[in-house]
């Protein structure tokens, strides 16, 4: 029970720190029709999410069955598409006015299904009157647009450093690093022991974000949580000294010293790096809680013990943690109240659907039944503890117009690839792209 409370407070803390152009929500007093489904007769509710369906998939198999069990008059039709197909399909359906009733959206400006972009275009219904958001308003600021909560999300996603405890012990490392210098010392010990310290699949450039955003939490947001708001207000810049230049320089050190082997990583895909890690070919990899299942699987090195720690900064440890993607209701849906009733049942923190949702291990729940018994919760506990202490910050790109991070990654990739790109080129490139993308 203690964990449940801690987790709830944690989420409130981290997202309160998140900067968002959102006003304080004002909630409807009367709420929606809580018997919309019961009074509707036979209805079909459509839902579209991104991802790849697996055996006994939660969204496409378990959820429709559990909803049918609860309300025999409801047929939930779920379509699950790979990310790119999902984005294309979503845009097409929105443009044609045929959008599914419930869709998967991401916090702030993240991705092509960002809740802010969709809300701005008027496609999302206000969820202020959902029972499951009451009391969590502050923690949902990253999905609140112009005073309206537009996405219901139940969990957080974490970025961290997975490590192989056996290889750490082999190199004589006894505890997790608490500062950047300690981390570099540990990398050196591993290298001296003939162990590749870190493996990354930089051919898929997005994985560079996994390390960079952890350092940004340590070095930028811990000192100035409003940095991104100031960027939009032109009161701060990516080129400001001691901000992104420092983060990029720190991360580049890992390549310069060979802790990440750029001659190899630039030709490696994300899945190949994961394979190397679970095969015991490298001691660490930066990745997210969303990839825990793959990173905890047995590889050629067998079932070795794994740990997960936040990458420390120069002045201590902070964590890059954000709200997970969640569910929104299409504003022109004919079943808005029925969808709200369905979401409330699913996300109530105690229903059978909620338990099945949690059992997928894809979310780190912050309230309700079993928040502290989520799969791999022990692994994520240090991060939750940091959240409790107010040392957690959202992933930077969620506050940037989509595309800014790609410019950063392309230029950083050029630098580690030895193309003569300097850190100042990267920060200038980021600032130019940021301004360009904000330009209407």
């Amino acid at each position, binding site marked *: 029970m203690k964990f449940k409370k801690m987790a709830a407070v944690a989420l409130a803390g981290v997202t309160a720190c998140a900067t968002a152009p959102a006003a304080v929500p004002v909630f409807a007093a009367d709420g929606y029709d809580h018997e919309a489904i019961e009074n509707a007769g036979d209805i079909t509710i459509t839902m579209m999410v991104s991802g790849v369906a697996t055996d006994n998939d939660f969204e496409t198999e378990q959820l429709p069955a559990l909803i049918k069990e609860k309300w025999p008059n409801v047929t939930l039709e779920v379509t699950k598409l790979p990310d790119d197909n999902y984005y294309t399909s979503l845009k097409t359906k929105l443009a044609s006015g045929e959008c599914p009733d419930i869709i998967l959206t991401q916090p702030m400006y993240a991705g092509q299904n960002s809740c802010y972009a969709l809300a701005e275009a008027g496609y999302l219904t206000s969820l202020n009157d959902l029972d499951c958001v009451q009391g969590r308003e502050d923690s949902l600021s990253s999905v609140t647009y112009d005073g309206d909560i537009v996405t219901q999300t139940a969990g957080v996603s974490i970025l961290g450093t997975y490590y192989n405890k056996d290889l750490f012990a082999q190199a004589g490392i006894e505890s997790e690093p608490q500062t950047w210098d300690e981390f570099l010392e540990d990398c050196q010990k591993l290298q001296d022991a003939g162990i590749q310290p870190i493996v990354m699949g930089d051919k898929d450039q997005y994985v560079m974000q996994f390390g960079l955003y952890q350092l940004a939490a340590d070095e930028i947001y811990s000192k100035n949580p409003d940095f991104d708001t100031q960027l939009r207000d032109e009161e701060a810049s990516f080129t400001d000294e001691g901000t992104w230049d420092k983060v990029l320089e720190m991360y580049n050190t890992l390549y310069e010293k060979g802790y990440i082997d750029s001659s190899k990583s630039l030709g490696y895909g994300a899945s190949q790096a994961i394979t190397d890690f679970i095969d015991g070919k490298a001691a660490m990899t930066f990745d997210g809680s969303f990839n825990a299942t793959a990173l905890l699987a047995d590889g050629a090195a067998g079932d070795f013990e794994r740990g997960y720690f936040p990458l420390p900064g120069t002045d201590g440890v902070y964590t890059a943690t954000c709200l997970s993607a969640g569910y929104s209701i299409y504003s022109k849906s004919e079943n808005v109240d029925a969808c709200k009733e369905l979401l409330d049942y699913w996300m109530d923190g105690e229903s059978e659907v909620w338990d099945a949702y949690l059992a997928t291990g894809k979310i780190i729940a912050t309230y309700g039944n079993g928040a502290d018994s989520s799969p791999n919760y022990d692994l994520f506990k240090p991060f939750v503890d940091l959240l409790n202490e107010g040392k957690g910050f959202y992933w930077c790109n969620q506050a940037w117009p989509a595309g800014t991070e790609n410019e950063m990654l392309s230029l950083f990739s050029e630098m580690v*690839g030895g193309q003569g790109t300097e850190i100042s080129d990267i920060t200038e490139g980021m600032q130019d792209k940021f301004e360009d993308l904000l330009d209407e």
Partner: protein
Amino acid sequence: MAQPKMKRKGANTSLVFTNKMYFFLIPALAFFLIFWIYPVLQLFYYSITNFNGVNYDFDFVGMKNYIKVLDNGTLTNSMKNTLIYAVLTVLISNVVGLGVAMILNTKIHFKGLFRTCAYFPALFSAIVVGFIWSYVYMPGSGMIASLLSMIGLDGAAFNPLGNYKTALYAIAIVEAWKAFGTTMIIYLAGLQTVDESLLEAGRIDGCTEWQLFHKIKLPLISSTVTINVILSVISGLKAFDYSFIMTNGGPGKSTKTLMYQVYETAFTDMKMGRASAFSVLAFAFIIIVTVLMLLYMNKREVEL
């Protein structure tokens, strides 16, 4: 007494394709207009707006998108990459395709089997080919790296997709590997139209095999060469698949082609208006290159 009707000059006198037959063109024409011409016109329309792909409450911005595309250097970089990619794929797929077609046009055993094998890569989708070659190129434990290690070379250092200088060439080779089967089939068809008696006459006159190829076969299949080269050029200029599947445009921006840049601008940057302007410019570029190539090739055909 009624006068016989005078037929208008140029009137349709065909008994087979009467005027009524034109009605049957309407469905195909409608499909063509709705699903091809209209979207192309829409592209021009969106190119002068700030449409982001989601919000239909957009404004007209005049030529701003075109100016941005020309100003920010992305067009130059992607055009350069596209041209290198196209030249490589055209050269490799045509030279290899013609060479294999020549060999498979001779009297050898298991000719059918070899022809099938040579055409095999063309049957796979780009996704499958991209994934296969990602593992072939993988540093350390990839197929080529393993082979290099087996013969005592440093396989771990072999990393063509992770190197700025080689990534574009590496994916161009993959495209050529997949495409050469198709060019080979077309060349094979062309070579089979060459009259054997001309070759025989050449041999009697003392021609070497090279002279037979250069002076007889090549001129006679010049139209086939034109078709293959033009198709390869068009395909090369529209390059997208392997940049997307194998390198994501990287490392850095080294494999960003015109089409990849359009995709990224539209779907990552969410600048649909600017992506439309980019597409219009890319469209014009491809048309110009193709027409110039076609004129040149036709001229060469006449000379040969």
